[in-house]
């Protein structure tokens, strides 16, 4: 695994002092995300319980791009929701930037994007991006400037005053990504954000997300169903299996800077095969090696 390269972080520098204080702390070796012995059991009606996750241990280093892949019901979305403090673990601990998940949510340490863009139809594109800033009490001018900046970043500057309903699905997802980045979070949580898009749009947005992640230096936890997507985007692919949901394998992906050619490189296909086999459970790369930053 390559050491995190120094990245341009102009995006985050504009966002306020506290962020920089946090990132200084993170560079001391605190994982961006840390799950220790996490179980999650859902009560299902009067009779039974559904075990969504069992004994999940994992750490994500600052600046790392980690993808979670697995069959439906393997708990990958639940895992992301635990990190986001949208649900609570039944056992174990979840820490984000060294804080409890709840504190991290209250401090808005992360930005989140779902499969549905969840844009508000009654707000223009730019006002949608401003929403998290509005809730944080930023003044109007600062909000507008920041939103314009993000629209540039996701390549939609001319659509600022459009309604989400007038945009294509791919554009809506870009707006959702811009909104997730609005407060300059150190951590991006993405739950199949490209799941509903056509293949071409999807590849283009993957390339853009890879670029954005590199430019902002944000840690990304990304849930997907697509093997090529996982390999293309991430430095590590966490393979999960269902019933009960658990981490079954971890595949390190070291393809350097992603370009359009990455998808056609032999190493890319080799990794795709490796992840596919891991999903089928044919080979089990050492799960034990999946610890907190011991390779870094």
């Amino acid at each position: 695994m390559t050491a995190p390269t120094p990245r341009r972080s102009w995006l985050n520098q504009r966002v306020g002092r506290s962020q920089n204080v946090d990132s200084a702390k993170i560079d001391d070796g605190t994982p961006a995300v840390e799950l220790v012995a996490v179980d999650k059991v859902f009560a299902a009606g009067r009779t039974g319980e559904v075990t969504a996750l069992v004994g999940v241990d994992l750490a994500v280093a600052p600046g790392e791009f980690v993808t979670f892949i697995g069959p439906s019901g393997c708990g990958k979305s639940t895992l992301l929701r635990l990190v986001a403090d949208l649900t609570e673990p039944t056992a174990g601990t979840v820490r984000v930037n060294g804080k409890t998940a709840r504190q991290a949510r209250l401090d808005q340490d992360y930005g989140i994007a779902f499969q549905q863009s969840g844009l508000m139809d009654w707000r223009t594109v730019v006002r949608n991006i401003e929403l998290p800033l509005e809730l944080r009490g930023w003044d109007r001018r600062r909000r507008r400037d920041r939103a314009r900046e993000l629209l540039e970043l996701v390549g939609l500057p001319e659509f600022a005053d459009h309604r989400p309903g007038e945009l294509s699905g791919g554009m809506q997802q870009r707006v959702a990504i811009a909104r997730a980045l609005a407060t300059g979070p150190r951590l991006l949580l993405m739950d199949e954000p490209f799941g509903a898009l056509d293949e071409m749009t999807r590849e283009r947005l993957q390339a853009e997300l890879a670029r954005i992640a590199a430019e902002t230096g944000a840690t990304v936890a990304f849930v997907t169903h697509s093997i090529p997507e996982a390999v293309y985007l991430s430095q590590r692919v966490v393979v999960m299996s269902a019933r009960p949901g658990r981490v079954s394998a971890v595949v390190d992906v070291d393809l350097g800077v992603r370009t359009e050619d990455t998808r056609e490189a032999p190493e890319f296909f080799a990794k795709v095969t490796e992840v596919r086999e891991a999903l089928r459970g044919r080979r089990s790369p050492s799960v034990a090696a999946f610890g907190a930053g011991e390779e870094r």
Partner: protein
Amino acid sequence: MPHVWEILRRFGRPETAAPGADSVAVAVLDGVWFTFRVAMVGLVLGVAVGLLLAVLMQRSRLAERGLLPYVVLSQTVPLVALAPLVVGWGGRLRIGDATWQPWMSVAVIAAYLAFFPVAVGALRGLQSPSAHAVELMRSYSASWWQSLLRLRLPASVPYLVPALRLAAASAVIGAIVAEISTGTRGGIGRLVIEYSREATADPAKVYTAFLGAAALGLVVAGMVALVDLLLSRYRPAEAHS
């Protein structure tokens, strides 16, 4: 039924045979204006109460389960039975020097009819945002109040506008019927009753009051259409472009 021409002509003639009596047009307009104001007070009151109940029921599942049956039940009480009760309760109210006016009873009854569609429609609307939209607000650690203002209320507008239309119509009907059943003077409801007593001798007269009531309904419907227009940006996407 008299000819339309007869009815229109009746508007120009004096209301009564008494010397110096105003024309029917003036009397009807006076009545319409009185009932319009009372109905508006009722509508505003009804919308406020309806919204408040909807927010309360959205906020607490217990409140929804406890209140909603009564909200539905409230509309099965016959208005005619309710009117004397309201007048009776109002008559006992004393706040400082202010005493209960007859029109207040009418407004309360109008509100009683108007609040129902708003409560039911707004509740549906407030509950309409998807789980993802709600979680997004949670991820911003938005307060309940912030979620209400920025997500739930705007999302409920497409449900609120039709509710408002029903509420406005109910308020007008409620005001007219309440005037009649409480015996309140000054409004168009009272004129309908008074003029209909003269229907045999002066058949055109009662129709002037009907026309007045119809005009009142149209004006109120127009006002709601105007509100709808002002809120058009909250309508679903296909309405723009």
